[in-house]
Every structure is written in structure tokens, then in C-alpha cells.
């Protein structure tokens, strides 16, 4: 929501704030968000891997993009449509298994793997969505959690022969991109500094695509209905729209994002753990999205960076980081529902008010 509330109307150019208005006009454009995402994937690794202390590493940067795609999709459901799913591990893990099995048995082409993963997630989302939306509101979280756990037990028990059960799926084989470009091949010169290797381009490319797709959805009339449902479901129904169908659509779209992310994760990790289907994964994506800030595209990205950074880099220093995280999570839900990103945008608008004075 912050994106919209902050947007000043362009064209109304006062002399004092003319520059700021033009900046806002620019920021309002869809291409601005996409350009921002592209600039981000170029600059972020340079900063992230060169921090003065506790610096990150390239593989973690890629992992952040993958989880960020998952989180952006999750926020389309939670932040924009107001539906809280506690079973999103199904789409992440289910598509990861589909990707792994496809790569082992059919083709190792990365783009095809991601496609198969996405389609799997869409099918799963349709089935679970139809079941979970049978009961209104509060039951949605319970039912998605339950059917999420069902998939975990199915992978562990009846399908254990294919999935590898508790050991996870290990037969992942990833071929070069488009048959020629080995994922580990680095670029030379300036390109090497900016884009590293083919694998990085793949993961970063999908991240930029996900941001572009999410911005498009949010700004479309269809996305406006999602947001209207979150604000007041009854009114949308009175307008003659089929709320149930839009909710299912939001759930499936969100599942598709998780599917892309799950497929990419299989390519990245070359392995699928059964834990990817467990409720803790669903809980993680809830925490990431809420901590980062729901109802915006960059909130979930912020949350992903913070979560994965702490989990992978700082966790050795703070023994009880999960405990701290839980306390932080409750604090955010209780006092700062807009999350970290909301705090950032809050500071930004305070600064603006100070700059512009009272006439703004």
C-alpha cells in the first residue's frame, strides 16, 4: 500500500517541490520498478559480498533472489489479497520435487525445469485452493496448513520410493542453459564484474522477471480487485464480482511464483530436502514476508535479505537467533504491521515533510 499512498499526483508542479514531483512521476512508472530491480541485481552482490564484517557470499546472493521470488508471490496473497496461507511449503517443495524428478528423468534444461516446476505448483494450488476456500476467512490458514502437512507426509510415506523419503531427492542433473551455456561459466571483463556467471544471470533474471510480473499484476485492474477484497470483501461482492474466483486466482498466482522459486532452488541446490515441504518452511515464508513488510513489492525482498543474512551469516554469533526472531516477529505484528519496509518508507515521508515544510 505504501507505494500508492505516497504517490503525489504528477502534473501538479509547485515551484518548491517541482523536482520532487517529477521524481514521483518517474517513480510511479512501472519501468522504474523494473529498472530498480535490474540496478539492484548489479549493485547488491558488490555490497553484500564486501561488507566490512560478516560479509555474504555469491551463492547466498542467488539464494536470496530465489527466496525473494517466493516471498513476492506470497505477499501477492497475504499483503494484497489479505489471505494468510500456512501451507505455501507445498508449492515450494512440491515444485522442487517435480523439478528434481524432471531433471533426473526427462531433461536437465534449466528453463524447462522451471516451467515444469511452475506448472506443478499451479496444479497443486488449484486443488488445495478449491478445498481450502470451502470455508471462509479464518479457516483458510488452518486448512492450508493441514493440506501442506498432508503433502509432507505423502512425500515421506507413500511416495517415499520416488522422493527419497527422509534422505531427500539426490538425483538432480542440471544441463547447460539452452544446451550450450554452462551455469558455472564466468563472464570476462566488465561483464564479469557486473553479472558474474551464467548461473547468476539465470537467478537474477528470474528475480527481475518476478518483480516485473508482480508490479504488472498489482497495477492491473485485476490486481486492484485483489486489493479491494483485502479492504472490504463484502463490498466487492455487492459489486457483483465473484470473490471466491478472485481469491482462487490470487492463490494460484501466488503458487506459481512459489513454483518458479522452488524449481530454481532445485537447480541451485542440486538437491531437494523433504524439509522443503514441512510446515517450518511455510512458517519461514510467513515470517520473511511479515518482517519485511506486507503490501509492497520491496518489503518481502527486504525481509528475505534480512532473514537469510541472519540465518546464514550471523546465526553463528547469536546462538538463539530463532528465539530473537520470534520475539522480533511478534513485536512487528503487534506494533509495526507495515514491517521493516514500512519503517523505511515512514522515515522517508517524515524526511519529505521536513524538506517541504507545511505546504505539502
Amino acid at each position, binding site marked *: 500500500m505504501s507505494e500508492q499512498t505516497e504517490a503525489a499526483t504528477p502534473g501538479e508542479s509547485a515551484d518548491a517541490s517541482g523536482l520532487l514531483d517529477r521524481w514521483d512521476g518517474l517513480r510511479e512508472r512501472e519501468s522504474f520498478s523494473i529498472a530498480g530491480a535490474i540496478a539492484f541485481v548489479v549493485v547488491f552482490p558488490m555490497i553484500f559480498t564486501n561488507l566490512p564484517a560478516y560479509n555474504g557470499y555469491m551463492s547466498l546472493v542467488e539464494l536470496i533472489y530465489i527466496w525473494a521470488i517466493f516471498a513476492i508471490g506470497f505477499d501477492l496473497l497475504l499483503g494484497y489479497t489479505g489471505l494468510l496461507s500456512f501451507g505455501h511449503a507445498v508449492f515450494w517443495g512440491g515444485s522442487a520435487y517435480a523439478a528434481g524428478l524432471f531433471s533426473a528423468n526427462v531433461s536437465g534444461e534449466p528453463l524447462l525445469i522451471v516451467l515444469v516446476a511452475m506448472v506443478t505448483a499451479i496444479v497443486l494450488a488449484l486443488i488445495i485452493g478449491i478445498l481450502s476456500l470451502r470455508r471462509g476467512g479464518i479457516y483458510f*490458514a488452518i486448512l492450508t496448513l493441514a493440506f501442506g502437512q498432508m503433502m509432507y507426509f505423502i512425500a515421506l510415506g507413500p511416495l517415499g520410493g520416488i522422493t527419497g523419503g527422509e534422505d531427500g531427492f539426490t538425483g538432480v542433473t542440471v544441463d547447460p542453459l539452452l544446451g550450450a551455456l554452462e551455469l558455472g561459466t564466468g563472464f570476462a571483463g566488465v561483464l564479469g564484474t557486473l553479472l558474474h556467471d551464467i548461473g547468476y544471470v539465470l537467478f537474477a533474471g528470474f528475480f527481475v522477471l518476478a518483480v516485473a510480473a508482480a508490479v504488472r499484476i498489482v497495477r492491473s485492474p485485476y490486481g486492484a480487485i485483489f486489493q479491494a477484497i483485502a479492504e472490504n470483501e463484502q463490498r466487492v461482492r455487492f459489486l457483483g464480482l465473484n470473490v471466491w474466483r478472485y481469491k482462487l486466482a490470487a492463490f494460484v498466482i501466488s503458487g506459481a511464483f512459489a513454483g518458479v522459486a522452488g524449481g530454481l532452488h532445485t537447480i541451485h541446490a542440486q538437491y531437494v530436502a523433504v524439509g522443503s515441504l514441512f510446515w517450518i518452511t511455510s512458517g519461514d515464508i510467513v515470517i520473511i514476508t*511479515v518482517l519485511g513488510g506486507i503490501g509492497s513489492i520491496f518489503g518481502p525482498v527486504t525481509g528475505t535479505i534480512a532473514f537469510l543474512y541472519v540465518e546464514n551469516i550471523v546465526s553463528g554469533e547469536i546462538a538463539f537467533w530463532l528465539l530473537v526472531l520470534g520475539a522480533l516477529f511478534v513485536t512487528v505484528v*503487534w506494533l509495526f504491521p507495515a514491517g521493516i519496509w514500512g519503517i523505511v518508507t515512514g522515515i522517508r515521508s517524515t524526511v519529505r515533510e521536513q524538506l517541504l515544510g507545511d505546504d505539502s
Partner: protein
Amino acid sequence: MSVVGSVVGFMIQTLAVSSIYILVAIGLSITLGTLKFVNFAHAAMYLAGVYIGLGIALELQFSGDIARSIGLGNVGLDLGFLAALAIIPIITFGLGLLMERFVARPFYDRPDTDQILVTFGILLIVQELIRAFVGGRSLTFSRPAWAEGAISLGPLGTYASWRLAIIGITSVLVLAVYLYIEYTDVGLAVRAGTEDTEMVNLLGVRATRPFLVIFGVGSGLAGAAGVVGGPVFSVVPEVGVGVLVPAFLVVVVGGVGSIVGSVVGGLLIGAVEVGLVMNAPTWSSVGIYALAAVVLLVRPAGLMGAVEVDE
């Protein structure tokens, strides 16, 4: 074994498994019915029952990192199982009152998603506190000596006395809560609140006190379930959610807001689970979800659930 014997054996196993789910589900069902409040932190009451119960009945080994760094050793009252069963519901009743007053009540007027998120966060904190102090590894909650061994029921066969004990304890607790809700003023307010919360408020009934009490009663039952379930399920921090999910399914299958619904739902879930464990063990954990899916498709409000006002 005779046909009658195997039927009775199946029923006893079903009742034993169902018991724990029913005890956890009743609290969930009532808060869902009256307050439309989804309480993930209910699982924290179960965890409190297991871990504090273990400390009261036998001994709790503090081997988490924090406990070790401050030199906390083993703490145990060694009072035995029955003492734990008597004390835990009182403790968790109190914890339930605190939770209603300080966590649930501030969130009644906030969106459903916020309620779910905050209770999930609190469950997470409790779970991680246990991991930090007691440790993440599995502990042993031994059965009391008097419940070891088997009891012969004449021609019906011989059964583990532990199972019969679980069934007996649960029956007493559930019956007591049932009578409480059917025949007292608090219960009346709760039942009215389940049917139509708005109307109860409009009629000028201050339902705050009944809701507070019933929140505590539900928590007390979940604590008791922890004591009973400790020796049955594994004793690890994650077991809270492991029990919470089937209990949610009990509410979905049985219908919300009534004790009878929870009992019926619990028995069905238990029967499916035990039936599959006996005949198709690989599917044993999956069947209960399939049952819930079928109920949702055929009777979305649950088997005993009335059509709710403003769901």
C-alpha cells in the same frame, strides 16, 4: 483373536489416540466458535503440559545451550504422573487466562490475519524457549508404573492398561467440561456466543468474563492433553504443531463450537488413523487429511456444525 476381540481392540486403540486430539481440539473449537479466534498458541499449552508435566511427574533435564551456560541442571519434583495430571490443568488454566487477557483480547478488534500471526509468533517463542533451555533432542516421558502391563477384559481380550487409563482420564475431563458448558451460566453465554456473538452483545450480556473463563478451560484441557500425550507422542519442541494440526482437523471434521462435535470429529480422525496404521502403515499419516478433504467437500460446516452466522 476373535472377531469381537479385534473389534474391541480397534475401538480401544482408536479411543486412546482420539483422546489426546479431542482434549486439544475442545479449546480450539470453543475459541473458534465464540470468539472467531484462531489460536496457534494453543499448541504452546500442550507443550507446557508436556514439559512442565515431565518436571512435576519425574525430572526435567535442562540441556539447552542457555541452561548450560547458566549452569542450570536437572529439575524434578518427582511427584508422579497423577500429581502432574492434577497440577498441570491448573497451571495451564492460569496461563490461558493470562493469554486471553494480554494476547487475545488486544487482537479481537484486529484483522483475522493479525490474530493468527501473533499467536503463531508466540508459539514460535515458546518452542524456541524450550529448545534454548531444555534442548531440542527427544526426551523420555515414562509411563507411570501402575499403568505398565496389561489388563484382561475376560473374553474381550487383554489390553494395555495405559490405553485404558488414557481413555478413562479423557472421559472424565470431557464429561466435566460438557456438563459445565451445558448447565452453568458461563456455559450458556458460551453457547449463545457460538450461535450469534453479535446478538449476545446487543442483548447486553457482558460476555467478557465467560470468554475469559472458557479460554482458560480450553487451555487447561490442552495442558492435560500434554501430560497424557507426553508418554505417547515424542517429547520434542516441534510436537506442539504436530498435535495442533490433527486437532484443527478434528474441529474441521466435527464442526465448530460444540463439545459433541469435537468428540465425534476426534473419534473419526482417530479411527481413520488407527485403521490405516493397522492395514496400510505408509498411508497412516495421510488418511486423516483425506477425511478432512471429503468432509469439506460434502459438508463444509463439519458433521455437527450448524451453519454459522457471519463466518
